[in-house]
């Protein structure tokens, strides 16, 4: 279950309470998030929507421990991350978060399998164990045959699939995707979303995704809109979200 009213059950995987983020530009404060609440259960698939500049990326960064809030708390699986030192936070990210960004995802000089292996370099897994994990992650995203390809030898959609393989290879607690289909054509976007859906339904992953695309958002269990620094539920039915987007 997903809730934005600070009333989710206490067993929610992700619990966000009173999240505030204020940037300063030229001495002038810009309040981006104001008292944002969110509860996400294990296995949920949430899409965040909202106009450009509404704070979607900011929210994802805070959830992923890439940035610290001005006030409020984020706890994941009982770990309160907002007060961790930057070193602890880095370790926490390695263990719990899989990131998929819109661009800049892959290291161009590494092959697909080397890119997927990166998070595993931070674990104690042996070389052969790493190889196994990489192979099964690439298999999940349907790129077994492209393991030795470099990013420039892959299509945009394939690159994103490699990025997803990398995000899931270390079996993180949840995935954060910031406009993962933003750079893709319709067909590739659909393929990526089919893959993400499969991760949620078949592999029971928890996914939080930002998107501008209503058709993409429609795939999620829940679509939330960022308005005035807080989240509002748009509708639980994929149909209503898709219809709303198309209207």
């Amino acid at each position, binding site marked *: 279950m997903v809730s934005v009213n600070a009333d989710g059950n206490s067993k929610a995987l992700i619990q966000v309470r009173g999240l505030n983020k204020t940037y300063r530009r030229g001495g002038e404060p810009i309040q981006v998030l104001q008292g944002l609440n969110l509860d996400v259960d294990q296995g949920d698939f949430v899409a965040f929507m909202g106009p450009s500049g509404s704070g979607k990326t900011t929210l994802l960064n805070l959830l*992923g421990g890439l940035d610290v809030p001005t006030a409020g708390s984020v706890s994941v699986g009982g770990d309160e991350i907002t007060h961790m030192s930057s070193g602890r936070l880095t*370790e926490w990210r390695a263990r719990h978060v899989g990131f998929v960004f819109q661009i800049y995802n892959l290291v161009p000089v590494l092959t697909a399998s080397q890119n997927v292996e990166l998070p595993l370099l931070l674990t104690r897994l042996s070389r052969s164990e790493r190889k196994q994990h990489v192979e099964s992650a690439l298999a999940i995203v349907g790129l077994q045959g492209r393991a030795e390809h470099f990013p420039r030898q892959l299509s945009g959609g394939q690159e994103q699939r490699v990025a997803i393989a990398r995000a899931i290879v270390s079996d993180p607690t949840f995935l954060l995707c910031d406009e993962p289909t933003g750079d893709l054509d319709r067909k590739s976007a659909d393929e990526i979303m089919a893959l993400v859906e499969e991760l949620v339904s078949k592999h029971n992953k928890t996914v939080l995704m930002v998107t501008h695309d209503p058709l993409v958002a429609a795939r999620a269990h829940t679509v939330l809109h960022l308005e005035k620094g807080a989240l509002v539920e748009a509708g639980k039915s994929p149909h209503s979200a898709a219809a709303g987007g198309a209207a």
Partner: protein
Amino acid sequence: MKFWSLIWANLTRKKVRLLLTLGSFAVALFLFAFLAVVRDAFNRGGGVAAANRLVVINRVSIIQTIPLSYRDKIRNIPGVENVTHDNWFGAIYQDEKNFFPQFVIDPDSQRQVYSELVVPDDQWNNFLKDRTGAIAGASTVKRFGWKIGDRIPLKTTIYGGGAWEFNLDGVYHGTRPGDDETQLWFQWDYFEERVPDRFKGQVGWYTVKLNTPDDAVRVAKAIDADFANSPYETKTDTESAWAAGWVKQFGNIEFLILSIGSVVFFTLLLVTGNTMAISVRERTGELAILKAIGFKNGSVLFFVLAEALTIALIGGLVGLVLALLAVPLVGQAMSGMLPPMVLSKPMLAEAMGFALLVGACSGLLPGLGAMRLRVVDALRRI
């Protein structure tokens, strides 16, 4: 190391740039090694000088001679194991540019005092029997393609002038790297017999071998005290002090070499530092991704430093291998004009240290920048 493929992939991402940077290191290290060799050659005296030897010269200057009669008096000073004497002959072989040092030696004590310069016994015995015999160092023999038994004509302008002919009876070799193998020696008796009267009974300098190096100061004082207030006062120094004085004749070589060396250092640092900075800036996005994934700040710094150090190591090795090949060739070409050139292990180590220092410095600033990079800013800066 499991991070190696990442470091290596980053290193080789721009092949041309990598080659140019490696080239900068190679050239700089080649130059650096050469400077070290030249500097060492000039300081050589100091390096190969035996700690247990003193050199006794005329107090006025090395050009002034001292009487042969001092020999026995010096030998009787306690602490002296042996003493030998030399004269500078300074003759010309065929042409002035064929310079090599020639010494009039005392066959009775030469090999005891200069025990590091060895002559095979059979050759030495032939030399002793041959009044006009000569022994030459291996490098001079090689330089002029001499063979044992050759007649070697030397023209002198000093000792009454004229042509002196010698039979090459033997070849000496130095047993330590850097030993001078360019000299030619011939016998005191023959010299004494041929020179005009005013040169007879006069030697250029004495070399004293001590029982123990600890006695150097005391014995040197004793020798000079013995001949104080005589017409030929002496000045006695350790061999290394004497060699150092000799080098000063060439001007401030040390300063010159240090200046060139510093210029090389800073040029290399600027070039490689700039390259590293550009190469790190280019992959801001990737570094941000690595950090997002969970690579720590320290790891990112480590990657950049490892990259810079690898370039330094490989480029440096290339330069040093080239220097190792080139130094003997140049040494040969300059033989006679400069003291022997040797690229020793400590010099190689020093040069490598220099390369790694430059590598570390060039990687440090970009590395710290990468370390401080905030993921959220880097991913926004699109």
